[in-house]
């Protein structure tokens, strides 16, 4: 007996909130995989801190999504009982940790965006989203600082670290475009003043990325082909494996309380 997936009525606000919750959960989960295995104890601490911030964000977003949906779902049902096609996170968040350079570049790309995005969301006309954004902004500012410092250290460190950091940038670049994409569902929320327009943030994001990369003696790729699909449930092959691990207990013991 395994627990079946729930169904979710994805009104624009529910879908919007789930997307943010899924970004935070999946990226937080990835970072938590480092705990006990990081290059130094200080990074076990820092990566866990970032993971805890993101998992905390995920919990508040899921709780809000469940409340808005009003169908008796809760944070755990939304996290543990949706399958890969129902997940709405950015592809960037689900990519495997790779080496430490890949993890830090992924964090850097995401946090540089999240920091701008949560700041913009603090003026959302939705009071709950504005409050979550205010808390998330403080956290993402720290994540951005921490990951930027590592990008510079790795890029301008040794020959090997430079090669690894550059490879991570080249590998992950195509997954950054999805952060700025807007679909019809989200367009309505932007027009209503509930959601911020991510496309408007791209120049500022690019400014941050460019400045840090140049200090790190790293080069941003010229190609502008961008992968998409996470927001509508078309994921990489990696997410299914992540979910089968994440959800194993809830799927194996339907309805149990832990």
């Amino acid at each position, binding site marked *: 007996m395994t627990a079946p997936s729930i169904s979710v009525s994805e009104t624009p606000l529910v879908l919007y909130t789930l997307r943010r919750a899924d970004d935070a959960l999946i990226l937080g989960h990835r970072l938590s995989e480092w*705990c*006990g295995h*990081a*290059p130094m104890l200080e990074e076990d601490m820092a990566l866990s801190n970032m993971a805890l911030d993101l998992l905390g964000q995920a919990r508040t977003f899921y709780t809000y999504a469940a409340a808005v949906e009003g169908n008796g779902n809760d944070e755990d049902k939304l996290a543990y009982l949706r399958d890969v096609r129902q997940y709405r996170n950015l592809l960037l968040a689900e990519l495997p940790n790779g080496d430490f350079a890949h993890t830090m570049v992924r964090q850097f790309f995401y946090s540089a965006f999240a920091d701008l995005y949560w700041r913009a969301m603090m003026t959302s006309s939705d009071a709950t989203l504005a409050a979550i954004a205010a808390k998330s902004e403080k956290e993402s500012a720290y994540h951005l600082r921490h990951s930027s410092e590592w990008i510079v*250290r790795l890029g301008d460190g040794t020959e090997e670290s430079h090669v690894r950091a550059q490879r991570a940038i080249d590998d992950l670049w195509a997954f950054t475009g999805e952060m700025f994409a807007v679909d019809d569902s989200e367009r309505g929320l932007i027009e209503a003043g509930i959601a911020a327009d991510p496309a408007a943030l791209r120049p500022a994001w690019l400014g941050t990325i460019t400045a840090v990369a140049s200090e790190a003696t790293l080069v941003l790729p010229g190609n502008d082909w961008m992968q998409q699909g996470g927001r509508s449930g078309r994921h990489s092959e990696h997410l299914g494996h992540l979910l089968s691990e994440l959800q194993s207990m809830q799927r194996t013991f339907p309805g149990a309380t*832990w």
Partner: protein
Amino acid sequence: MYTQALNNNSDAADRTIEDAAHTTAFQARIDAEARIEPNDWMPAAYRKTLVRQISQHAHSEIVGMLPEGNWITRAPSLRRKVALLAKVQDECGHGLYLYAAAETLGASREELVDAMLAGKAKYSSIFNYPTLTWADIGVIGWLVDGAAIMNQIPLCRCSYGPYARAMIRVCKEESFHQRQGYEIMLTLCRGSAAQKAMAQDALNRWWWPVLMMFGPPDQASQHGDASTKWKIKRFSNDELRQKFVDATVPQAQYLGLSIPDPGMTQDEEGHWRHGAIDWSEFKQVLAGNGPCNRDRLAARRKAHDDGAWVREAAAAYAEKRKFRQAAQAAE
């Protein structure tokens, strides 16, 4: 501060007389319950004993991240996932304080860690057992952190100041971990039959290894005497083990779980007397033959080896920056 290097003429005999005077004064301070601080004179054997004990303790915190870390990605609810990750992170923090305490005695974290990775330094035998189900996370918090608290509360009054202060901070967090572990057990025991069976199975597997955490029985313990005289150790292994058993049996009864020791009896004074411990198992685990010794060391070595280029990059960058700042200042 140190002044010993100034007097090159003093011969070995003078030094022996001086050391004897120092040793008497040192022991008098210990007897008066004074704290020894890093710059105070201390016998070489005291220093060596502390470095060994504190570094073993630090290694235990770090290796101890692995069995529980095994469930971070599979924790059964978001609340449990966050709590477990925060707990394992706390253990890492404990490792850091303890390495820092060992460094106040002149050891370096790097050489201590290298000894552990080379298999030359010990860590607590308990972390060489596997976490097979979610209930193991409950049992570890309840019993392993519980046993750690029994061992560590007396260390808050240890004669060496930095170790005692680290322990005060660590004990606060360990008791939080223990409550959290017990609460996991309570939830399992109030849950379905399958959950309760999972809890009992975990207790069955961990009970005896947890009793072994207190170390060999008193007559066989190697370091007991000097450590007691120096007030590093205030209770014997068997005393601490007995305190732990007495505290734990009622907790198990409240959960409705049975202790896997058919020979256990309660004596007239109310103490719960456990049956004979299989010390040959303990010896095997210490000798490297526990179920997970190889996996634990392999995981720590892999993290260390895979991270080498990152640490080298950080060092190289710091060096470049220092050089650039010096060049800038010279302009």
